[in-house]
């Protein structure tokens, strides 16, 4: 693990979009393991370069840890309902994997992409919470982080929302429940699309992950094979023995190539697919928020109607409770209007977001596919070259018979 905090340039992963004038550019780098035992964690260096007036200066460097990123995401989710908040990588459950070099690098890359997506979203980049995240001192962050966990939704809560939304949507689709849901056909189609998409993507990602494993397994097998062949060559002796030895050595070389490619595959193909799945899950969370907003709007509208009826009744009998009832009614009306506004904002934002999302994903996936193709081609060519180079040696061995 690299503990030198040299101010290297931002190592933007291929998926991080570049921001336009005025600019806000962020990089997440230099992971360092801090703390001991169970308390140990990874800290990252976050470098911000910007010309936004709201920011403290053209450049700022802070140290952040994973839970800080989670905090940022939660805050944005609360404040910007309707917008598809970029997803963050999951918290890894497997203890011993937590500090492996590959895992750390993958997480760093994912976090870098996360922050940059926020920084290039025309609305999210204005966020005050983002500014806090990018500039505040560590002690401030720590205070905020621990203070907010009780109030705002934790990942486990979000999980519950996903499940609720999933069951509610499928209920509606199956016609089980009387909808306190929108009757927008287009929106229904979108919801169905999102849920089915997640299934398809999850399957593709599963196989991509397996493919990585297969590369590692085949690599190991070639290594074992190579060793055994070399031993055979040694016991054979003569020219044929030499041929076997050469074969064994080539096998071992190829084993290394396969292991390398396995890692490449993981980072530039499987991870983007996983990222896609997370993005879809984030949309599901937004769908849940929209459903909540709609329900609230309906509830308030209902309550308002009742209050109106009640008010008319009171006015008719010239009760002295009229004034109070009137006041309540007006309060309720304001709330109802606010709820309607909230809901309509969400609808508007979602409509904008969905197009942007599709475009972004086509681009992200295109890059991932390209890297996948390049990697596999590189591997195949490496294999072909290695075996081809062996042939003249084999000819030499047989001609000396």
């Amino acid at each position, binding site marked *: 693990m690299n503990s030198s905090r040299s101010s290297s340039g931002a190592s933007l992963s291929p998926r991080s979009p570049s921001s336009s004038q005025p600019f806000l550019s962020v990089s997440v780098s230099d992971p360092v393991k801090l703390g001991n035992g169970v308390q140990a964690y990874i800290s990252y260096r976050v470098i911000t370069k910007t010309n936004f007036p709201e920011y403290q200066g053209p450049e700022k460097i802070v140290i952040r840890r994973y839970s800080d990123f989670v905090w940022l995401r939660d805050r944005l989710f609360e404040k910007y309902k309707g917008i598809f908040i970029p997803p963050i990588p999951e918290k890894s459950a497997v203890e011993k994997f937590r500090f492996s070099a590959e895992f750390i690098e993958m997480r760093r890359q994912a976090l870098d992409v996360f922050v940059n997506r926020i920084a290039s979203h025309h609305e999210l980049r204005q966020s005050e919470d983002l500014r806090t995240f990018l500039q505040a001192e560590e002690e401030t962050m720590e205070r905020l982080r621990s203070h907010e966990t009780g109030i705002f939704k934790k990942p486990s809560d979000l999980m519950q929302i996903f499940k609720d939304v999933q069951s509610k949507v499928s209920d509606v689709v199956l016609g089980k429940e009387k909808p306190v849901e929108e009757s927008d056909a287009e929106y229904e189609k979108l919801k169905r699309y999102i849920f089915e998409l997640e299934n398809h993507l999850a399957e593709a990602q599963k196989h991509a992950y*397996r493919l990585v494993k297969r590369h590692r*397994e*085949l690599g190991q097998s070639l290594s074992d094979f190579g060793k055994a062949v070399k031993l055979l060559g040694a016991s054979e002796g003569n020219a044929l023995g030499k041929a076997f030895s050469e074969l064994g050595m080539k096998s071992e070389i190829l084993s290394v190539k396969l292991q390398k490619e396995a890692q490449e595959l993981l980072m530039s193909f499987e991870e983007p697919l996983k990222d896609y799945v997370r993005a879809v899950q984030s949309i599901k969370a937004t769908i849940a928020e929209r459903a909540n907003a709609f329900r609230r709007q309906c509830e308030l509208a209902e309550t308002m109607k009742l209050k109106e009826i009640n008010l008319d009744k009171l006015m008719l009998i010239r009760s002295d409770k009229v004034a109070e009832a009137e006041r309540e009614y007006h309060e309720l009306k304001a709330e109802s209007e606010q709820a309607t506004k909230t809901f309509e904002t969400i609808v508007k934002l979602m409509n904008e977001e969905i197009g942007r999302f599709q475009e972004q994903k086509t681009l992200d*996936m295109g890059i991932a596919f390209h890297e996948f*193709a390049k990697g596999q081609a590189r591997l195949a*060519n490496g294999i*072909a070259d290695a075996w081809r180079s062996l042939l003249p040696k084999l000819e030499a061995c047989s001609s000396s018979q």
Partner: protein
Amino acid sequence: MMNQDHVLHASQDDEMESLVLHDDNGNGNGNGNDSSGNIQQPSQSPKSPFNSFLDPPSYAEAIFTSFDSNGHDQTLEQSSRSGTGSGSGSESDCMQISVSDPQEEQELTNSLVPGGSSYHTYLITTRTGKSEVGVRRRFREVVTLSERLSEAYRGYVIPVRPEKSSVERKVMQKEEFVEQRRVALEKYLRKLVSHPVIGKSEELRLFLEVQGKLPLMRTTDVASRMLDGAVRLPRQLFGSESVAVDLNDVTQPARSGRDLLRIFKELKQSVTNDWGAAKPLVVEEDREFMDKKDKLMEFEQQLSNVSQQAESLVKFQQDMGETMGELGLAFVKLTKFESEEAEFESQRVRAADMRNVATAAVKASRLYRELNTQTIKHLDKLHEYLGTMLAINNAFSDRSSALLTVQTLSSELASLHSRIEKLEVAASRIFGGDKTRMRKIEELKEAVRVTESAKICADREYERIKENNRSELERIDKERQSDFQNMLRGFVVNQAGYAEKMAAVWEKLAEETSTYSSNNS
């Protein structure tokens, strides 16, 4: 294990695969339409743009031309396996064996119980030049053949016959087992036929040509030999029988049905040998032989190791191909889904991209499967030579038992001589001679004469077997060198060829997705 051809699963997966493969007009990959996994005509079209990326000669072409439709390497068949005698390998000398048409027949028993056990017979067809002979044989007759050959051709490295394998028979389906046995029998008979000495043997000829049950030969009459041995034993023990022995019988190894007394003697001798009390006859030569034997054992060990690793390698190659295929299918489904649900142009673009990925993955998966089928055939040579090692061990034990016979006779002679000497010394002390003792001495001298003749036979036999061992090892060594070289070459050409093909597939995808490369903004 390695002998089985890789079976493809024809399922609805093939339907989905064809969704992506049929539309491909570019590098028309003819393999996409065939689900049997056999090699088709060379599928790399000469107009393929990717030929220019490959260095000539491209091994992608080579792999398709070195195999005929049976998957037999023609170069192997022609690398003179027809033995030293056939010279230029003229057509008429070449025997082609095929085993086919297994049929079930009922066992004819005298038992009163109806519905006796059944067995299978196989049609064995021998084609020599223009003529053709066919006989029906059951496995039991093959066992008999192999036993006769072992007795008649001691010291030779005789191919080991297929196993009786009663366990597999119970576990497998009947048709599967019968088919497996048919294949094994064919391989075995072909190996016998291509052995320079065995291939010309009378026993094999009878087996291949004579209709009906094989005639019993003298040496196979186990029952009567047992009787002979048992009858003679008491007389030998009392030392009263003049040993009129068939000299040929002497040189045969002592078997369970034969001379029981001889078995006891040889057992005693081998124990003596092991305890080092008697000096082994010829030390230097033995040492060279022992060295060779050690080397061969070492070689066998390594070979077994490599064979195991090769099986693993094949398995992992297969896994890779399967997973690649599953990935391809997942993308086929995604493509279909996004195309149907597309609201935005970006979705249609993505669907097209995914389709390209699916196509590439499915093609790569098929290439892996083909590669594997070929790899199995090549590396099967390793497995085959493990069988040869077994046969070599048998030839070595022929030698050991011949040596044991020689040594037994030697020490028999030695003990006879010392008995004579003792008797002569004792007899000379008695004035006028000792009638009983003189008679005894005469008997012993007669025994010495017989034993000496027997020993001469045994010596000859031992020398003969040693020479067989030596010439066989030489022959096998040469064959092995060329077989292994071909195997290596085939394996490497195969791997290189398929890697090139796969590179072409992925390069195509890279080109199709080049708009997304980081070089373009």
